């Protein structure tokens, strides 16, 4: 093996689906044959030019890609340091990065002859994206959503229903994203023969973490050429920052830059009420330890007996006790740095972005913005930061209003 390949961070996972010790295929036997079939189909599609031609066409004409890389001038001025760019994933059709991955998985499902699509959703963005693409292709769509989230993300629930999806509120456990994923897995194991499970993040059994990453990597690939266009040939970002729940928007931005050693990579976890032993946060890397859940080994919020904890975040999309296994690996080997941001800090960043740039960001993305607010002022003006603005915040205005003690009448 040539030296440069040996030193590459981009070759994972191995044939057992592992990034270091993380990842794997921890699922029941009923699902195993299907997972192996999915892996084979994906391996085939990955190198099939007609698959990517179809993706490119849909990305361009249906999603509206490439999403702009936007120089946030007033934000940069106000923070008084590094030059800040926003990767505008919130401008995609359906308002977030989620659709990048959904299109890829639905094309695969069609190739596999599956006509029933199931998905889990937290904030509802992945559910909306899945319902959208299913409507476009005339596929049956069932979305599992925690009952708590159904309540706090009502506009997205209505959107999914308009798009023809059936939304099933999940009451088991505490009714959040983790429980929605459990029930989606229960559905899958029951209807394994005709059903495709469209996972929304870079987690789950192999090949999902790698497959979802590959579909989201369009974010980082575009960022690379777009920055060169604006800053000159060969100019790389100095720092790239993204919010991390399961971690798909972050992995999509990070992956194409993993081997560019000069690029600082920062993932921002949901610190909720603060990362301490009250465990009222969703910072799996900064406040959890390795375990096995939902098909993969990764950092998890858990008690000393290996029981999974619920965590807390103001943002439904980050409210998950785990994280994609590749992030766990990048964290352990030190290639990426992971920090946390509290609910309060995210709320401040949300308002700051509205005020300085005329962009209402998702609460998820506001976590990434909040970290940049902390570091940008101390960095030189020629230092370039790219933030993944993974979603728009229209869905969050009710939550934000509540926290700002504003009463909204609808």
């Amino acid at each position, binding site marked *: 093996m040539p030296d440069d390949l040996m030193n590459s961070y981009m070759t994972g996972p191995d044939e*057992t689906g592992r990034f270091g010790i993380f990842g*794997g*295929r*921890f*699922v*029941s*036997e*009923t*699902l*195993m*044959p*299907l997972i192996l079939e999915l892996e084979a189909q994906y391996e085939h599609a990955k190198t099939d030019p007609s698959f990517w031609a179809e993706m490119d066409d849909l990305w361009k004409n249906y999603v509206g890609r490439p999403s702009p890389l936007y120089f946030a001038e007033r934000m940069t001025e106000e923070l008084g340091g590094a030059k800040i760019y926003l990767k505008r994933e919130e401008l995609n059709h359906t308002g977030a990065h989620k659709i990048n991955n959904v299109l890829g998985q639905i094309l695969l499902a069609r190739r596999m002859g599956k006509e029933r699509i199931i998905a889990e959703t937290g904030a509802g963005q992945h559910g909306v994206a899945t319902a959208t693409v299913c409507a476009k292709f005339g596929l049956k769509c069932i979305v599992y959503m925690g009952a708590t989230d159904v309540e706090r993300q009502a506009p997205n629930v209505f959107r999914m229903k308009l798009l023809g999806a059936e939304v099933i509120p999940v009451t*088991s*456990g505490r009714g959040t994203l*983790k429980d929605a994923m*459990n029930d989606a*897995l*229960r559905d899958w*194991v*029951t*209807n*394994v*023969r005709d059903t495709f499970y469209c996972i929304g993040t870079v987690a789950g059994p192999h090949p999902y973490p790698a497959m979802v990453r590959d579909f989201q990597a369009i974010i980082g690939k575009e960022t690379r050429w777009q920055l060169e266009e604006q800053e000159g040939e060969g100019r790389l970002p100095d720092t790239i920052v993204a919010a991390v729940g399961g971690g798909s928007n972050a992995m999509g931005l990070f992956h194409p830059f993993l081997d560019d050693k000069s690029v600082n990579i920062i993932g921002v976890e949901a610190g909720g009420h603060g990362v301490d032993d009250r465990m009222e946060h969703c910072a799996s890397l900064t406040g959890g330890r390795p*375990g*096995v*859940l*939902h*098909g993969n*080994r990764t950092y*998890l919020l*858990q008690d*000393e*007996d*290996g*029981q*999974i904890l619920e965590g807390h975040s103001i943002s439904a999309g980050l409210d998950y006790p785990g994280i994609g296994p590749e992030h766990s690996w990048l964290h352990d080997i030190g290639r990426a740095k992971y920090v946390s941001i509290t609910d309060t800090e995210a709320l401040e960043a949300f308002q700051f972005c509205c005020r300085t740039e005329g962009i209402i960001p998702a609460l998820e993305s506001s976590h990434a913005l909040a970290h940049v607010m902390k570091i940008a002022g101390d960095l030189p003006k020629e230092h370039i930061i790219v933030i993944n603005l993974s979603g728009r915040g229209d869905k969050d205005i009710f939550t934000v209003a509540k926290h700002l003690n504003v009463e909204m009448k609808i």
Partner: protein
Amino acid sequence: MTRIDDTFARLRAEKRKAFVAYMMGGDPDMATSLEIMKGLPGAGVDIIELGLPFTDPMADGPTIQLAGQRALDGGMTMAKVLEMVRAFREGDATTPIVLMGYYNPIYSRGVERFLKDATDAGIDGLIVVDLPPEEDSELCLPAQAAGMNFIRLATPTTDDKRLPAVLTNTSGFVYYVSITGITGSAAAQAGDVAPEVARIKAQTDLPVIVGFGINTPEQAQSIASVADGAVVGSAIVKQIGEGKPVAEVLAFVASLAEGAHKG
């Protein structure tokens, strides 16, 4: 030879089918749970499957999910499940105990420490739902090396090509999951199960026990008649969940055992 192997040797000699009963460790509380467990052999149970509670039981239906939640809410832990097993073993040295659950609580304790503690307590076999053959190096191989049986699930989606991989490191018995689905689902039909059991038996000498979707003595009899035995879980757990007195639960178990033994 483990207690499981001994039990099947005895059943073969007696020309009887096996009855396996599942219960959740610590449901509704540890004392009641232990009392039920101690009564199972007398009710005709040949092998006890003891559930290890977990917050996220992805292969289980609502009945067993709720049982796990009750146990956890009552303060049940891995240590207390092992304590239950030790207490049971004080009065019963022969009935095999298979611990059934999910990998994370075991991984969290550390595989080596878990195997030592579980063996010392008197556990004979393991069924870990989220460990397929692809992950054998995690727990299956260390468990076999520690003298414990590792019982694998075979399912309707396990085709002939895959079956050898599923059987390779299995010991004790093969647990055939009669339906694609979660525990406590619709009834399995003996007519569908019989050819599947035959298909598995063509490739292994291990006993094949059938579970999932068996709720009545009649079903236990008809399924056992086409296999080496039957497992009932959710139907028993449901009675415990309804707060039935221990004697009533055990009487129901005895009726199931009688059905399976007739099979």
